[in-house]
C-alpha cells in the first residue's frame, strides 16, 4: 500500500476532511491498519452527511415506500412507478443549494444536470423538470443576483438538453437570505422492461467511464459544500465550482439510452457527489462484488492529478458502465457515434474489495461495501425549539384587519406580493414545450404531460410553504403534501407517488433535528392518509448562515395519473354563466398567512389546521368530476386564500365573475384566510348539480358562490375590481423586483 499516512498526520487529515475521530477509528478498524491518503479521502466523502445520510436515515424509515404502482422505491438513483400499458415513470428531486449560493448559474445548471442523469441512469428518457426555489427578499442586490442567476442556469441547462421545465415554485423570505434553496426535480419515461439498476455483476466484466474528462473541479464539493454550514468563509470554498456542459449531457442521454436499448450494458450509474468513488462503490456493494480500477486510465483534463483527486473529482457529465468484454466493441461504437469518449478503467472482481491502482501501485484497497454501507448511523438529539411557544401563542385575531372599503386594495396588494404574483418571468425563460407532451403549460396548479402512445397523462407539482413549517413542522409538512395533491387533483390527476427534498439546518443541533423529525412524521402521516408512497428523495442539511437555520423546508414533488388525457382542467374560468362552486369550508385561519405578513409584517400564529381525510375526499371529488367531464376549471386555495384564488381564475381565463360569500366571518377573513382543503371549480348550470351531488356523497361541505361573467371580479359587499386591474397587479411584479424597482 503506497502513500500510507503516519500515525500523527492520519487523524488530523481525517478531521480536516470532515470526519469525526471515532469515524476515523472505525476506518482503521475496518482496514486493520491506517488508511492511505486515497482511502481517507474516499471514506471521508462516502461517510459525509451528503452521501451517507448518517443523521437522517433512521428518521426516513418512517416514510411509506411501497404501493401497487411502485416498481422501484428509494435506494436507486431514482424511484420508478408503473403507469399502465407497460409504461413506467421515474422521478426524483435533489438539492443543489450550497453550490448555487456560491455561483448561481453554474450551481443551478449542474443541479439540473445531476438530477437528469439520475433519471436516464434508470433507463428512462427525461421528459420534464420542475424547480423549487427559495431566496431572501429581492430588495437586496445579492438576492436578485442569486435569483436571476439560478433561473438562467436552470433554463440554460434544461433548454439545451431539450428537456422541458414545466413547473416549480418560488418563495422569497428573509429566512433564506444567507442560504438560498435550489431544488430540481426530473421525470423520465420508459418501458417497464428497460428499468436498469446500478448494480455491478459478472466477474471479469469491464468498468467503462463514459463522457467528459476528469479535472479538479468540485473536489471536496460534496463534503465541503453540502455538509458544512455557510459563513463568511464561503469565498474560500469557491475554487471547487463545477461548470456544466449541457451539450455533453445531451449526448450522454442519447448514447446511454441507445446502449440500454441494445442491451449492451450490465449496469449503468452516474457520477455525482464524490464522483467515481461513490458511483463505483455503490455499484459494487449493490452487486456484492469487488472492483479493480486504474486511475491512470481515466482521461484527465488537468496535469499531474493525484490518485485521490481523480477518485473524488466531481467533474460533470460522466457515467460509469459495466460491460461484458464481448460487447465492449459494440458499446464503444455507440459512444463514438455520439462523439463521446469511452474508456475501460477497470474490471469487476470476486474479492468484494474496491482496489484502486495508479499504474501498478495499489493506492487504495478496502471492502467496497464499507464505503457505501458502513458509515456510522446517528440518532441525533432532539429538542422542541424554544421559539415555537412565542410564535404559536400569537393570535392573529388581535391584528387590525383591513376595513370593508379596503378589501379591493388589499386583494391587489396581495396579488402583487412577491410570493403570490405571477411567475411568468421565470417560466418564459424555460423551454416548457419541447417534446410536445406539455398539455397544460405553466400557469395552472399542475403541469400535465401526456404519455405518447397511450391515452394517459401525468400531472406534476412541487410544493412547500416554509412559513407553515416554521410555525409547526408537523402540520407544515402535511400541508406541503396536501397542496401538492390538490394542485395535481385540480388538473385531473390522481396522486400516485411523491419524491421529496428535505431542506433543513444543522442536524447536530437538537432544535433543528426536532423540526426535521416532526416534518418527516408529518409527511409520513400525509402519505399514509392518501395511500401515496415516497419513491425517492434527498436530504439537504446544514442550510444555515451566520448560525441561523432556514425555515424547515420539506419540499414535496407529487406525480398523479390521468386515465384520459383529454379530461384535464386548467385554472382559468371559461364561459359566461358557468356556476362557481367552492368545495371545503373556510375557517378563521390567518396564522402564517400572506395577509398577516402584508398588514402586520409578521410570520406568526398557528398554521391552518388540516384534516387529511377531508383533503383526500376533496381531491377525490374534483378528480371524479373531471373524469366525468363535468368540471370546466379548477383551482385550489393556497397563499392569499379564496380572494386570490378567484382573482387568479379570472386573470387566467380573462373573464370576470360575480360572487357572494355567506357566513359569519369578517369579510377580510372569508377572503384571505388560508384554510386548507378548498378547491374552486366551475361547471355549466346542468353539470353543477353533478358536482354538488358528488360533494354530498363524499360529505364534503360546499357552497355555490356565484357565476362566471363580466369583466370584473365582483364580490357582494366586499369588492369589485376590473380583471385588467387584477392582471396589472399580478403580472409585472416579479420582473419589476428583479430590476430592483
Amino acid at each position, binding site marked *: 500500500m503506497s502513500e500510507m499516512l503516519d500515525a500523527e498526520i492520519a487523524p488530523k487529515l481525517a478531521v480536516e476532511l470532515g470526519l469525526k475521530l471515532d469515524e476515523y477509528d472505525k476506518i482503521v478498524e475496518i482496514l486493520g491498519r491506517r488508511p492511505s491518503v486515497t482511502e481517507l479521502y474516499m471514506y471521508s466523502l462516502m461517510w459525509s452527511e451528503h452521501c451517507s445520510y448518517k443523521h437522517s436515515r433512521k428518521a426516513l424509515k418512517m416514510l411509506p415506500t411501497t404501493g401497487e404502482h411502485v416498481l422501484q422505491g428509494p435506494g436507486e438513483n431514482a424511484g420508478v412507478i408503473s403507469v399502465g400499458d407497460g409504461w413506467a415513470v421515474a422521478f426524483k428531486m435533489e438539492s443543489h443549494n450550497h453550490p448555487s449560493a456560491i*455561483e448561481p448559474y*453554474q450551481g443551478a445548471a449542474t443541479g439540473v444536470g445531476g438530477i437528469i442523469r439520475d433519471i436516464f441512469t434508470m433507463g428512462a428518457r427525461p421528459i420534464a423538470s420542475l424547480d423549487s426555489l427559495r431566496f431572501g427578499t429581492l430588495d437586496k442586490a445579492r438576492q436578485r443576483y442569486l435569483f436571476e442567476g439560478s433561473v438562467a442556469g436552470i433554463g440554460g441547462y434544461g433548454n439545451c438538453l431539450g428537456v422541458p421545465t414545466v413547473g416549480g415554485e418560488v418563495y422569497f423570505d428573509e429566512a433564506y437570505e444567507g442560504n438560498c434553496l435550489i431544488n430540481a426535480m426530473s421525470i423520465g419515461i420508459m418501458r417497464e422492461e428497460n428499468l436498469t439498476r446500478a448494480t455491478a455483476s459478472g466477474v471479469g466484466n469491464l468498468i467503462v467511464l463514459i463522457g467528459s474528462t476528469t479535472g479538479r473541479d468540485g473536489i471536496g464539493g460534496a463534503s465541503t459544500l453540502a455538509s458544512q454550514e455557510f459563513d463568511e468563509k464561503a469565498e474560500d470554498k469557491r475554487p471547487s465550482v463545477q*461548470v*456544466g*456542459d449541457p451539450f455533453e449531457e445531451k449526448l450522454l442521454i442519447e448514447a446511454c439510452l441507445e446502449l440500454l436499448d441494445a442491451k449492451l450494458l450490465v449496469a449503468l450509474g452516474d457520477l455525482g457527489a464524490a464522483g467515481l468513488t461513490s458511483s463505483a462503490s455503490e455499484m459494487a456493494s449493490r452487486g456484492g462484488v469487488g472492483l479493480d480500477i486504474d486511475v491512470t486510465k481515466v482521461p484527465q483534463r488537468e496535469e499531474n492529478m493525484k490518485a485521490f483527486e481523480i477518485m473524488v473529482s466531481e467533474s460533470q457529465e460522466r457515467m460509469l458502465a459495466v460491460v461484458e468484454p464481448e460487447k465492449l466493441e459494440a458499446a464503444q461504437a455507440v459512444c463514438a457515434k455520439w462523439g463521446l469518449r469511452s474508456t475501460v478503467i477497470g474490471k469487476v472482481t470476486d474479492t468484494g474489495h474496491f482496489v484502486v491502482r495508479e499504474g501498478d501501485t495499489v493506492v487504495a484497497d478496502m471492502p467496497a461495501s464499507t464505503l457505501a454501507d458502513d458509515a456510522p448511523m446517528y440518532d441525533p438529539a432532539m429538542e422542541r425549539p424554544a421559539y415555537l411557544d412565542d410564535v404559536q401563542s400569537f393570535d392573529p385575531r388581535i391584528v387590525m384587519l383591513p376595513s370593508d372599503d379596503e378589501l379591493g386594495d388589499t386583494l391587489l396588494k396581495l396579488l402583487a406580493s412577491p410570493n403570490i404574483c405571477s411567475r411568468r418571468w421565470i417560466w418564459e425563460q424555460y423551454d416548457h414545450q419541447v417534446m410536445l407532451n406539455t398539455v397544460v403549460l405553466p400557469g395552472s396548479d399542475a403541469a400535465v404531460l401526456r404519455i405518447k402512445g397511450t391515452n394517459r397523462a401525468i400531472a406534476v407539482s412541487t410544493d412547500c410553504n416554509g412559513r407553515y413549517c416554521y410555525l409547526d413542522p408537523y402540520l407544515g409538512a402535511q400541508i406541503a403534501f396536501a397542496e401538492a395533491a390538490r394542485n395535481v387533483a385540480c388538473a385531473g390527476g390522481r396522486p400516485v407517488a411523491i419524491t421529496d427534498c428535505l431542506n433543513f439546518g444543522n442536524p447536530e443541533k437538537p432544535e433543528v433535528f426536532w423540526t426535521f423529525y416532526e416534518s418527516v412524521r408529518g409527511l409520513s402521516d400525509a402519505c399514509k392518509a392518501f395511500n401515496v408512497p415516497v419513491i425517492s428523495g434527498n436530504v439537504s442539511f446544514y442550510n444555515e448562515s451566520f448560525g441561523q437555520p432556514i425555515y424547515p423546508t420539506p419540499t414535496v414533488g407529487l406525480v398523479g395519473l390521468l386515465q384520459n388525457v383529454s379530461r384535464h382542467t386548467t385554472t382559468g374560468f371559461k364561459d359566461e354563466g358557468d356556476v362557481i362552486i367552492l368545495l371545503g369550508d373556510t375557517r378563521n385561519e390567518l396564522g402564517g398567512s400572506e395577509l398577516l405578513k402584508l398588514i402586520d409584517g409578521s410570520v406568526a400564529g398557528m398554521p391552518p389546521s388540516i384534516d387529511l381525510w377531508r383533503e383526500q375526499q376533496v381531491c377525490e371529488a374534483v378528480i371524479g368530476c373531471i373524469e366525468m367531464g363535468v368540471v370546466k376549471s379548477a383551482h385550489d386555495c393556497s397563499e392569499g386564500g379564496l380572494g386570490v384564488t378567484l382573482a387568479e381564475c379570472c386573470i387566467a381565463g380573462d373573464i370576470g365573475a360575480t360572487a357572494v360569500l355567506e357566513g359569519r366571518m369578517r369579510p377580510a377573513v372569508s377572503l384571505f384566510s388560508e384554510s386548507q382543503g378548498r378547491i374552486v371549480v366551475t361547471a355549466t348550470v346542468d353539470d353543477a348539480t353533478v358536482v354538488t351531488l358528488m360533494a354530498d356523497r363524499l360529505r364534503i361541505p360546499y357552497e355555490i358562490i356565484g357565476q362566471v361573467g363580466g369583466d370584473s371580479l365582483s364580490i357582494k359587499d366586499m369588492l369589485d375590481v376590473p380583471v385588467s386591474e387584477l392582471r396589472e397587479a399580478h403580472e409585472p411584479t416579479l420582473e419589476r423586483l428583479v430590476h430592483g424597482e
Partner: protein
Amino acid sequence: MARFDIYVTYKSGIFDPPGATAERALQNLGYTEVSSVKIGKFIQLKVADGTSIERVAEMCGKLLANPVIEEYRIEPVEEA
C-alpha cells in the same frame, strides 16, 4: 476619451466547454495541429479621460467578469 482593453478568461482549473468543442471541431476540420482552444471575452471600454485603472478593475469585479470562475487583465490603450 480614454480606452481600456479587458481580457476575461476562465481561472485555471475551470472547465471551458465551448473551448473544448472548438478544439474538437477544428481537429475534425483537418486542423490536426490544434492542441488547445480557450475562449474568453475581449471587452473594449471607452471611458472619460482620467479614469483610473483601479476604477476599471472595480467594474470588472462587479459586472464585467465573474470573479468566482473568471480572471481578467486590463490594458490601457493609447488612442491612435
